[in-house]
């Protein structure tokens, strides 16, 4: 089976700082890959390179076999790549439902439409409401996003990415900042991700990583230190030394 996302020798430098070094790995349909590593290992930089926020200094990114290394962020999204952010990145004053509708309009290529009202697309409205129901946010359809609890805003991050119907999903610390105990709905949402979706997740919570991932890539000082099944990673002495401790 061909890879949905393939990274070949990705490099990124910020001045003298070599942040990612020759990173190569691939994601296939249904993969649940966790990207772990100590702070400053280059995890978020890598996600920014993949999603097109940062240009690559060298290397190649292939999405569904197509070279997207030089494509804009928007083109990569249209090619099937979606992401969430470590720091909640939403339109704070938008009603929750509008926010979801916005993702749907974008997916359908409608944000160039100048004449019809946003309310004149009943199918998309219904789909947005369906997504809100699925995430347990239906009661908040008209609430301004900034008025939601933080954990619920993290859910919207994920709902927006899924509304785009991606084939590859990058989750940058979806649980970051969510108090323990408030994370149940997020965990349920992670479990409910479409089975054929290729997921790359950055996460520091090792319980979650080992529960969710069927493969783990360890990044240290910008380079891939290890790449394998969770049990192998857990036993790998280099990983233990670099990151996991005992």
């Amino acid at each position, binding site marked *: 089976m061909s890879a949905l996302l393939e990274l070949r020798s990705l490099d990124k430098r910020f001045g003298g700082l070599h942040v990612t070094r020759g990173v190569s790995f691939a994601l296939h349909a249904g993969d649940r890959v966790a990207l772990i590593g100590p702070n400053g290992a280059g995890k978020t930089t890598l996600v920014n390179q993949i999603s097109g926020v940062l240009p690559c200094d060298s290397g190649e990114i292939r999405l569904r076999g197509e070279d997207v290394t030089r494509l*804009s962020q928007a083109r990569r999204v*249209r090619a099937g790549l979606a992401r969430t*952010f470590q720091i909640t990145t939403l*339109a704070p004053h938008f*009603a929750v439902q*509008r926010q979801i509708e916005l993702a749907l309009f974008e997916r359908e290529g409608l*944000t160039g439409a*100048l004449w019809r009202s946003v309310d004149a697309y009943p199918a998309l409205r219904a789909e947005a409401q369906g997504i809100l129901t699925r995430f347990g946010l239906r009661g908040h359809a*008209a609430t301004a996003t900034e*008025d939601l609890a933080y954990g619920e805003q993290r859910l919207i991050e994920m709902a927006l990415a899924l509304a785009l119907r991606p084939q590859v999903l990058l989750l940058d610390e979806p649980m970051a900042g969510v108090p323990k105990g408030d994370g149940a709905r997020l965990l349920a949402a992670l479990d409910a991700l479409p089975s054929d979706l290729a997921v790359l997740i950055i996460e520091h919570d090792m319980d979650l990583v080992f529960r969710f991932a069927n493969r783990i890539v360890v990044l240290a000082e910008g380079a891939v230190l290890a790449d394998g099944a969770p049990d192998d990673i857990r036993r790998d002495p280099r990983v233990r030394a670099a990151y996991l401790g005992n």
Partner: protein
Amino acid sequence: MSTMTPPSALAAPPALATAPRCAPAWRAPLVLLVVGLAACALLPDQFGLLTRIFITVLFVLSLDLVVGIGGLATLGHAALFGTGAYAAGIFALQVQPDPLVGLLVGIAAGAALAALSGAFLLRYQGFTFLMLTIAVSQILLSLAQKARRWTGGDDGLSGFVMGPLLGRFEFDLEGRVAALYALAVLVLLFYLARRLVDSPFGLAVRGIHENRARMAALGTPVLARLWLLYTLAGAIAGAAGALSAQTNAVVGMDSLSFALSAEALVMLILGGAGRLTGALVGATVFTVLHHTAASINPYHWLFVVGALLMLVVLVSPAKAWAWLRRRAGAVQ
């Protein structure tokens, strides 16, 4: 946990953002038409002032699309207005005097300048964008000064006489036709702007205003959307400029001036940015104040505007409303 209480009006620049449904696009323009016609009927000796209000409102409306909806702070919006004004004036003088054709020429000129300058300006954000918009308008101002043969330089462009509107209605001395013409164009363009803001395009642009990174992650071609918004706003500013040229039969250097850009921004802040209706209120209040206060004291009328602006900026509308409601409750 959050509740179903609506967020404060202050916290929501785009009024629509907190509402699950948009108000019908024709409602506010219809109110504007009725109020405008009533003003024309009740103040038959003030057609000149009314025309100026209608044109100013149209210009500030265009500015609101850029500043309030798109979130792009500009101090060079007069460049688009002045270009529309000079284009319509030169067209009337050199080609033909039909007002509607001239209006279209002004619209095209404003849109063309916005499209050209926007392709460059919109690559920048924040303070850099702001300074570059000033630079563009200053360049145009000095070009207009140099090209005396076309623009009349500091003396202004004059000597053109507009033909009858629709081939029937001559522009009369009292200014009745001019006022109704300006009102009609304003209502039509206000309606179009309303539709634009409520469309998926408008939603995306407001999304860019709220959070660029989010919109890019949703796959929005951010620059292309902002460019189209800027071009359409340029068309509306060009229309305002053309109306000004046609109804005054003169175009001065001040139509490209920094002062005009800054005044328009003051009007927008006065009325509230991001709602379109704020442009109506702000421009009307400012123009009426200008007219009345300046006739009382031509040197110090800006004190009144300054004081009003401080009041609006320092006292939040939400608090003012709450205070008014409490007062109303106490009276009852």
